[in-house]
């Protein structure tokens, strides 16, 4: 049924449709509305047989989630930014123990300095945590991906982070198609844990494993990630068939046929970019978008196919690695190893800096003019803001427009 609602409410309804047994949460913007709504459903009885736990920190939230999942219960929680970091220890435990927790990360920049707006530095900081990381490009995608996430997590035996852009999605009101309970009950049967803590058949989960078997434990964990690629596709296909939705998948191509240039984007920026690409098409410029949904596991093979024989690829990245370069770009390069595809990072949209259609337009023109000469470019950096400090402090000024990594490096050499 179509309804004009807030993204957070839509996600809360999606979670409730999945009949979780335990929901625990600690408030942090921009995730709070989701669990507030789930809490209301539990309180009003709309969501039955669910324990909603208010805890005193994110560390406790993930600890409760681990406990309830190890107890064989379908479990959901949500967080963002510093809250995700505070969970970090437990996050690794959850994946290492193979607990199929579903957690929303309402992506928000990591401080300091504190910043509450959207980028991907929080979710990508947990890149190596062993969780599946599924990014959503719209609120409809978020609603559907949450539902699919439970099934994927339980099939694979790993936890899933559903990453949706904070505020841009969570707080946006738009038309959402929420599936019916009957549909979801058909899609997602009650959780049957393959193993869980019970006094009837006691087991010990997560005790010490030494050097004699740790590598093998990790090998098997990685094997689940490999399996996950298949499961994501299967579950997506099943869900799409059931609901008619277009959500999910490992990645999604838009206007990729014979594109001269492809942009690889995660999250809500995809929507902005699609509109701009449509405008550019009218100018005769043919640009494709690869909306990367599954960042972990990274779909190397699907990515290679999606890029195809396109010779130029720009990864629009909303986070980067300090002292290194982009985070998505190296993965794409691995996927395209042995080809002559030119792959670059355009960092933009940090800490909530808006990415407009004009940003996408400029990025495409910049690329097609051959101006992305370096692997890493600060695409939307504002030299006026920079110079207002560096000029007086160090006698350094930066030119207007996108800045390549070498310009940053050179400014240090000559300073």
């Amino acid at each position: 049924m179509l309804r004009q609602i807030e993204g957070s409410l839509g996600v809360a309804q999606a979670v409730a449709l999945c009949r979780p047994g335990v929901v625990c949460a600690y408030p942090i913007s921009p995730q709070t509305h989701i669990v507030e709504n789930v809490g209301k459903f539990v309180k009003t009885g709309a969501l039955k047989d669910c324990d909603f736990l208010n805890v005193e920190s994110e560390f406790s939230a993930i600890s409760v989630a681990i406990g309830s999942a190890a107890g064989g219960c379908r479990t959901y929680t949500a967080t963002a930014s510093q809250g995700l970091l505070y969970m970090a220890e437990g996050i690794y435990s959850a994946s290492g123990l193979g607990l199929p927790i579903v957690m929303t990360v309402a992506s928000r920049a990591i401080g300091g300095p504190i910043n509450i707006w959207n980028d991907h530095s929080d979710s990508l900081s947990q890149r190596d945590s062993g969780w599946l990381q599924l990014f959503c490009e719209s609120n409809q995608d978020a609603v559907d991906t949450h539902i699919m996430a439970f099934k994927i997590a339980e099939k694979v035996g790993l936890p899933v982070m559903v990453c949706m852009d904070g505020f841009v999605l969570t707080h946006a009101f738009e038309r959402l198609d929420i599936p019916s309970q009957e549909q979801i009950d058909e899609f997602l049967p009650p959780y049957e844990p393959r193993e869980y803590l019970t006094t009837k058949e006691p087991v010990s989960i997560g005790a010490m494993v030494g050097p004699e078997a740790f590598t093998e434990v990790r090998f098997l964990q990685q094997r689940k990630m490999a399996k996950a690629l298949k499961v994501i596709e299967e579950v997506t296909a099943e869900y799409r068939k059931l609901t008619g939705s277009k959500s999910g998948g490992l990645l999604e191509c838009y206007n990729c046929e014979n594109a001269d240039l492809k942009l690889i984007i995660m999250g809500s920026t995809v929507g902005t970019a699609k509109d701009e690409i449509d405008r550019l098409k009218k100018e005769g410029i043919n640009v494709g978008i690869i909306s990367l949904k599954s960042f972990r596991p990274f779909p190397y093979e699907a990515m290679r196919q999606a890029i195809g024989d396109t010779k130029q690829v720009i990864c629009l990245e909303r986070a980067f690695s300090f002292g290194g370069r982009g985070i998505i770009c190296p993965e794409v390069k691995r996927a395209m190893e042995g080809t002559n595809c030119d792959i670059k990072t355009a960092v933009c949209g940090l800490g909530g800096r808006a990415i407009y259609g004009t940003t996408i337009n400029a990025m495409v023109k910049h690329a097609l003019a051959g101006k992305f000469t370096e692997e890493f470019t600060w695409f939307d950096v504002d030299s006026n803001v920079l110079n207002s400090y560096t000029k007086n402090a160090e006698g350094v000024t930066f030119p207007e427009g996108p800045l390549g990594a070498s310009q940053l490096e050179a400014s240090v050499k000559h300073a």
Partner: protein
Amino acid sequence: MMNKSFAVTLEPGTSLENHTGSWRTLRPVNVFKLPPCNKQCPAGENIQQWLYYAAEGDYEHAWRILTEENPMPACMGRVCYHTCEGKCNRGFLDESVGINSVERFLGDYALEHKLAFKRPVKETGKKVLVIGAGPAGLAAAYHLRHFGHTVHVVEQAPEAGGMMRYGIPVYRLPRNILDAEIKRIEDMGVTIECGRKVPDIEAEKKAGKYDAVIITTGAGISQNVDIPQGDTNRVLSALKVLGEIETKGEIQIARRVAVYGGGNTAVDVARSLRRIGAEPVIVYRRNRDKMPANEEEMDAAIAEGIQVKWLSTIAGATKDSLKIEKMALDENGYPQPTGEYEELPTDAVVLAIGQNVEKDILAKLEGLNMERDNIVVDPETMMTSLNGIFAAGDVATTDRTVTHAIGMGKNAARGVNAFLKGQVYKKQPKNPDAKFEDMHPWYYTDAPKTVRAELEVARRTSTFDEVQHGLTEENAIFEARRCLSCGNCMECDNCYGVCPDSAVVKLGPGKGYEFNYDYCKGCGVCAQECPCGHIKMVPEQI
């Protein structure tokens, strides 16, 4: 059957292979500390322990623990000045535990349920004479009987009880309570012979073939002071007034009476006189801060309308007035005469400036060491300078309270018991103090002290009805549960719950816990989270 993950999911108890205790550099140990209430109690009561059982609702057990030290809890719960409460660590949190009120509850509970002391299992055949049936003598007799000795008490007054009967007014200690608690001691087989004064202690000892004697004759002579007076103003002693009210129920005195002194006896006299319709005025040479009388008793006296002339001495007396000299405290807090005088219309004066020991029979004991007004006793054994003759209570101390007398009586009984076995009694070394700083009070919830109901002030001027009421069971258990259990385990399960290695083993109700050092890593969380400071981390010898 579960589908178990490789290496991650194992049989239960598999982690027991890792003896993580070998990582430890500090080990937790249970320490038993001396709670400040126990330390302070002049009767040596194990307060913390009996509060523990009271808090469990096991009142008989609590009473049994209590009476291991003090056989008169119903009296004690009324007349003890409960200095323990002043030392209570709970005072740092909100208000001290109402120990005295719980003690009274237990005492009354035992009387109501007719709980009796156990008779000794074995008779030793040894005979002990106790002279004086006041609190020290009764306590000594009780403990001696407990040890299996044959005890005979001789009391010169018509009834047993000493100052509890002839000094403490009825409104503080109803006599049916006193009688019942004395009777319970007699029921153990202690014989009390009243109305006879022992004329010669040595002769009595020889004639009765006593193996030991305890002198607990008290300090029953009111101290006198020379007041220059015309022959018409009546001057009476405090003990005469209190004794007469006790025996006759009243005293013919006067309307306007000055009570001279600032101790508990002065307050008892003034409050008693108020009840028989007189208008007492306490005349005291120092101020309220320096007054030795118990604060609560003094508050009650003031509430009952008793006037006080602070910083005043009686310089002289005429038929219907006193000549009062104003005093001033010097820099050391001592009162100094100012040379300023005033008249206080008065018909009689009661002297309540202290009591002395009756020395006539003591003088007959050759070689008995006395110091000023007291028999000198060994502080551990309570034996006097004469072999086999012990002393306790007011006769042997300047700290003259019922509670202290009961404690001394107990110690004297222990001294005698060892003596009768040919040994010398040695006090057990005390545990280190349980200090508030060593505790983790976060776990204790705020709980204000339960205030005992009192007789309305208006009714106190006409009756000797007991002023302070007891606690209900509900209140008593609440009050007992306010105990922080300083330095001693209360089995709250905190250590058991917080131990990340499940290395705290529960031993069952009343038995506490032990540490499984095979797995205890020495993290110290248990010690940090033990509310009562019962766990100490000590370095391992490496």
